[in-house]
Structures are given as structure tokens and as C-alpha cells.
């Protein structure tokens, strides 16, 4: 990891096909800057992406990367981190990918406290399939599949994370570049599962959760003096459905990541040329 790594080193030469003005541009820039700023380089970084607009990110970034199947990015990230504790792992996904099809994996990755950062581009809509309701869509949000709104409350991913025993919960806004990058950096540096829900507006299909809406309504927790180590205070802001917050809501400073709890420290990709030296012990056990 050389100190002269620039964020552009994390950029591939492929031009994004996101719609002009898509929040994912800002989200990705913050991820690349955050990775560079925390001393990582592309050869020691693994980015896992899911399916959907957010899933394209692996193509536009430069690092070791896998663009997987819908909803399963977190298990892939878990496998990478367990096999290679020496590698920085970042998982990117969308609200459909993470909170609908992948909701089960989300809960378990959170409770395992795998040492990786998870960035969810939450635009409260299915963009790539052209505008259906997502798990974070408002209950009255009219879409092609929900002409009268979903008529069910949206998933609160922050509360889901808190209930699952998260050690780091944050929320940012793609358009507030500096704060977004700061929050991503904190997630990367956190020893454990660094979860960031990013408001990443869809300019094509969501005319409710827009840049203007977030700009006008967003409350910055750190400006408000919120202490992320205060669990009760975190619970209060996470369960407050009247306001939109950005900042680090909760962080457990005592967090011990999964691989350390399980004593996994070795690079598992290095193996001997033949069976391990003491492999006959395995046979003798069956005497």
C-alpha cells in the first residue's frame, strides 16, 4: 500500500452508463476517495457488487472485483474476507439487492460482524427494471406495480441493522460529497461490519425522494452533537421516522470482527505443494 495512491487509481476506463445526474456517481466517487484516503490500493482491495444500477459499480471501479448474482453480494464479501483477512473488502448494493432479495444475508452479515464496509445506494425505487416499488419506497409511492402505493411500511434498514447487533451504522447523502466521503472512511476504518445507507437519488423514476428533498430535509447528526457511542441515542434517531438523518448513528468501539473472534489470521490462499506435512494424523484418527 503506497502512500501515493490517488482515488483515480480506483477508477476504470469504462464510462458509466448511469443516467446523467444519478446519485450513484457521487456515491462511487466517495467510495473511491474513501478507499484511497484510508491507504488502500486497487491490488489489495476487493469490491463485491450485487445486481441493478448499483451493481454496475464493479465495472466502473478498478480493483479486484466480483459482480455477482442478485442479493448475494454480502456472502461473497464474507468469503473473500475470511479467506484473505489481509485484503480490504467493500460490498456495494442497492436497496432492492440488499433489503429485499438479500435481506436475510444482510441480517446475518451484520450479526457476524464481518470486517468489511457495506455501501447501499438507496434510491427507494427499482431503477434498472424501470420504476417498480422497492423495499424502502414510501407506502403511498405510486409505481407501475403499485399504482396506489405499496400500502406497507418501508423497511428501515438502520433499525434492521441495529436489531441484528450492528457495530457500525451510518447514513449519508451522495450529493454531500465531503460528508459522504468522511462517513465512508469511518466505515472502512471500523473494525467490523461498516454499514452505510446512502441516499442516492434516482432522477429518472423517483420524483419524490429527490436531491432537493434530501437537501431540504437532511439533519446532520454530528452537527447536532450526536454521540455515536450512545446506544440509546442511536436507537432514538434510527427509529425516528419523521426526519432524515446523515452521519454515524452508532458505533461500538469494542467491536471485534468475525475473523478475529474465530482466530482467522492467515492468508488461506497459500497452501503447500502436496498434502500438509502432518496430514497422516487425519488418517490415524480413524484407527
Amino acid at each position, binding site marked *: 500500500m503506497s502512500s501515493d495512491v490517488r482515488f483515480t487509481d480506483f477508477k476504470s476506463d469504462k464510462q458509466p452508463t448511469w443516467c446523467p445526474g444519478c446519485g450513484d456517481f457521487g456515491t462511487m466517487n466517495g467510495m473511491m476517495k474513501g478507499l484511497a484516503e484510508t491507504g488502500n490500493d486497487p*491490488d489489495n482491495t476487493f469490491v463485491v457488487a450485487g445486481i441493478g444500477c448499483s451493481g454496475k459499480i464493479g465495472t466502473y471501479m*478498478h480493483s479486484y*472485483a466480483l459482480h*455477482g448474482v442478485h442479493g448475494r453480494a454480502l456472502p461473497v464479501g464474507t468469503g*473473500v474476507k*475470511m479467506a484473505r483477512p489481509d485484503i480490504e473488502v467493500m460490498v456495494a448494493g442497492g436497496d432492492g439487492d440488499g433489503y429485499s432479495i438479500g435481506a436475510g444475508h444482510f441480517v*446475518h452479515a451484520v450479526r457476524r460482524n464481518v470486517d468489511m464496509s457495506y455501501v447501499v445506494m438507496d434510491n427507494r425505487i427499482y431503477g434498472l427494471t424501470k420504476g417498480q416499488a422497492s423495499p424502502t419506497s414510501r407506502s403511498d409511492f405510486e409505481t407501475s406495480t403499485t399504482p396506489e402505493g405499496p400500502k406497507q411500511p418501508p423497511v428501515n434498514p438502520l433499525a434492521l441493522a441495529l436489531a441484528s447487533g450492528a457495530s457500525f451504522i451510518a447514513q449519508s447523502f451522495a450529493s454531500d460529497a465531503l460528508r459522504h466521503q468522511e462517513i465512508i472512511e469511518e466505515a472502512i476504518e471500523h473494525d467490523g461490519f461498516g454499514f452505510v445507507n446512502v441516499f442516492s437519488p434516482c432522477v429518472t423514476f423517483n420524483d419524490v425522494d429527490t436531491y432537493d428533498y434530501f437537501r431540504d430535509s437532511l439533519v446532520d447528526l454530528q452537527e447536532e452533537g450526536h454521540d455515536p457511542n450512545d446506544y440509546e441515542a442511536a436507537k432514538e434517531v434510527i427509529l425516528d421516522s419523521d426526519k432524515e438523518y446523515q452521519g454515524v448513528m452508532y458505533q461500538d468501539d469494542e467491536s471485534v470482527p468475525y475473523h478475529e473472534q474465530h*482466530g482467522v489470521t492467515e492468508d488461506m490462499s497459500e497452501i503447500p505443494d502436496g498434502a500438509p506435512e502432518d496430514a497422516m494424523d487425519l488418517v490415524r484418527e480413524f484407527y
Partner: protein
Amino acid sequence: MAEDLNWAVGGEAGDGIDSTGKIFAQALSRAGRHVFTSKDFASRIRGGYTAYKIRTSVEDVQSVVDRLDILVALTQRTIDENLDELHDGSAVIYDGERSWEAEIPDEVEAVDVPLKSIAEDAGGAIMRNIVALGAACEITGFDVEYLDEALEKRFGGKGSKIVENNKEAARLGQEYVQEHYDLDHLGYNVETTDNDYVLLNGDEAIGMGAIAAGCRFYAGYPITPATNVMEYLTGRIEDYGGHVVQAEDELSAINMALGGARAGARSMTATSGPGIDLMTETFGLIATSETPLVIVDVMRSGPSTGMPTKQEQGDLNMTLYGGHGEIPRFVVAPTTIAECFWKTVEAFNYAEKYQTPVYVVSDLALAVTEQTFEPDVFDMDDVEIDRGKLVDDDEVDEWLDAQGRFRAHAVTDDGISPRAKPGTVDGAHMSTGLEHDELGRRTEEEDERVQQVDKRYRKVETAQNEEDWDYREFGDEDADNLVISWGSNEGALIEALDYLEDDGVDVRVISVPYIFPRPDLSDEIEAAEETIVVECNATGQFADVIEHDALTRVKRINKYTGVRFKADELAEQIVDQLSEEVPAQ
């Protein structure tokens, strides 16, 4: 076969049937005898008939037979279920003090031992099965000291008092039979030898093979009958720097394993039919992203939840064709417990050499059966590891394009691209399930699509030419009658040869451990007058591929009762089939 001893313990699930059987099997193995075990069990924790059967001999034994010499019966149902197998030299050990009135056939020796009371005298009712083992030792003339060794192995971790109590229970059981019965006329005299055998089942052999082959990361989800692979690896793989994750479901398990593999570690998951269904979407991603991964399918009766605790070989088509689109893959199928070890080792080499997913297809009969082997059958010095085109920092250069980008999916003559694991300088690249160019980036260009599809299939061609897709052969190689088998039927077939020989029927047996790629058996089928394919499924899935390969019709023996083939039964069916007309062309 006269020196065979066939022993069983049966009762309700939860009666400790499994551990009782295992202890006796270990004692026999310690005594230098060959052991082959089988289990009847139901898919429930408590209640329901369950039995553990042991066939033991000083000669090698590879299958079960329809005969029972000594039966420890904890319930009447145990006797009823095995009536056909009891004969006029059999003995049934039971506890007459218990609430059930044993109905035992007249020609069978009823050996009434107050198992529970004796166990209580020795320290606890829980040891009643051990009392029965002591009684069995007395009836069979088997030196109880070997039982002591097995009890030490089993209970050593629980302290010397427990071990001593169990030894005492066995001794009291032995003495009770000595004092109350004279069973010399049954003529059992279990010989011992100086041989040191190891005793293990197919799931354990797969787990051991994985560690030997350098597997360090395993993710799985519990499912019968594959769970034992995970249980074996947990607690052992750590000693070699590895780790097991019990995932939240099969979807997660295979994706975790995929992550481990992309990180450069030899990784594996194991499941059974229903789990394979769930994993199939990711299976396509693994093949398209050219990730080396070993996926074990321990088959059970399907479809759907089917009969989870019963034998079947019904997933061949699933592993061979499963998944949308066209997916290059390797499918290997161990034919014996020892092969479970060696085919797993091979699978890891194929996976990394050809950068493909490799299915290891085992079945319940292999998974839950324990068998004795000479330890050097698992000689670790013979384990070879080939990591394929894994490039290091110095080798990356030759695979960079003009812009310095790593061509992870480079189109090559042999279809195999270079592989760089994370941390390799300048090797950073992206992989995806989308169709992609040489750099791994999405493409829908017609030429690039065709190049990548061809490239992925060219790996299979390369492997077909480079590797030895051989088969195992038994019986008379010049015989006119050819029997082809895959999976766990091999042992029963080998023993069926003895019965067939008695009937004057010459048979050549070919046992095929490779489903894809597989040996071309056209010449062998051409040379034979009759060809029969034996398998545990209803439709003859392997027979179908054999017919396809050889462009001819074959006869079939199919069993799908949920129970594995027995040697005598197979011999009979082979004779029947040989007298049948050849099916229409």
C-alpha cells in the same frame, strides 16, 4: 462368505443406536477385522425405527447381505423389520424385563439379558447398550478387550470413571450370558488379526480429502446426508489454517465459497439435492466468472424433500445439466468410500487447472456407510496439488493489454486464462456473471460473446485430451456380458460376481467415477453381447448418457426403493435381465 458375521442393533431413534453400532464397529476394526456398516434411519430425532448393521469378516467386505446373525433388539419392531434376515443360527439379544413382550421366531436363539438392571448395577441405565455389546462378545467369542479399546476411544474425553463404568457394563453383560446360556452350538468364533485398519464413512473421506488437497475455506448449511462433511471439517480444518462458516442458507453458503475461491483459497461447499437446487443460480456465475470451486452433492431420495434419509442416485441430470444457459462443468462421482477421498483431491485440481466449478457427486449409501481400509489407501504422499495458471507478480506482465490491464479472461488456445488472486500487483480485474470481454467487462458484442463461450468450452476439450478419464474394472474382461455402474453400487456388484460365478454367468463390470467428462465406452459396449447399466434411480439417467455416447440401446437395472443394492439381489437381477429381450432400437 461363511466367516462373515452380520450383527445389528435396532431400536427407536434416540436409543443410542448409532453410537452403540459405531463402538462395536470400531472394536472389530481394532481387532483387525474388515467392517462394512449400514444404517436404517428415519428423518426424526426421537422415535421411529432405526438400526445400525455391521457386516464383518477377515476378508474384505464391500456390501450388505440379507442375513443377520446377532441382533440386539431394543424394540419388537427391530425384530419384525429383520424377520427375513434371521435364520436358524441367529441369536436375538433383548431385555425381557422391559415392558414389551418379545415375539421371537422359534428357530432363533432368544437371549434374554436384563440389560437395564445390569447397566444400573454398573453405574447407569444409559449403558444398557454396552451391556448388550458385552453379551454379543460372549456369543461370538469376540475378545472383550477390543471393546475396551473402543470404549476408551469413545468415552476417553469424558473421564476415566465413565470409561471404567462402561467397561464394567460390558463385562457384566458378558458374564450374564456366560452364566445363563450355552450357545457354543451356534458356532460363532470371531477371529482376530494383526491388521491395523482405519474405519470411516464417505462424508468423512470427502472432508479428509478436502483438507489434504489444501481446502482452507468451507461454507455450508446443514442437510442430510451431507452435514457430516461440515461436522468433520469443523474442528479439524482450523488445525491447517482454515475455517468453516455455517451460513444462513445454501444460497449464502455457495456465495461465501465463491468469495473464498475468488480470494485465491481452495474453497468448497457440500449439500444434498434440495440444496443443489438453491445453489444452481450461483453455479452459473461460478462457471461464467471461471472461478475454481468444488461443490459436493451427497444425493438422497428426491424430488422435493423426497425421502431425506434414503438412498438414491437421482441428481445426475441435475449436476450434469442444471442451470440456465449452457454451463461448462466437471462432474466426478466417487464409487467407494476411499474414492470419496481421492476424487475430492482430484476435484480441487480440476477446479483450479480448468477454472471451473466441479461437482463431486456422492450418495447417501457412501455417506453413512463406514468401511475399513488399510491406512495406506489414504497415503498423503500421493496427494498432488496443481494450482493451474495461477500467476504471481512477475508473471502478470505477459497477460497485460496495451493499457496495462490484466486479461483475466484472455482467449487462449487451450481455453484456460491466467488467474491472479487479490494482492497480485497489477492483477486487479473484475469478474462477472454477465458475458464479458477478455478484461472481464460486460459485452454484448457478437464476436466477443462467441469467443468467450468457445473459450469456456475449449477448457473441457483440453481436459478431455489431457486427463485420464478412466474407469475401474472387475470380473472377467473377456465376458460377453457387460455391466456398467456408477456411484456406490460398485461394492455390491463386485460381490455379486461371486454369486454369478456360482451360477456360471461370466460378467465384466465397469465402474465409472467420471460423469463429465467421462470415458467413451463405445468400444466396450460394442465388444459385449449384452450391456446392463445399474443405478439407484427410476429412469436410468446414466444409462441415458451411455446410450447417447455409444448410439445404442442398453438394458437397465434400476432400484428406487430408497435402499441400496445388495449383492445377492443384484446377481439375481443381472441373470433376469440377461434372459430378457434387448430393448427396441
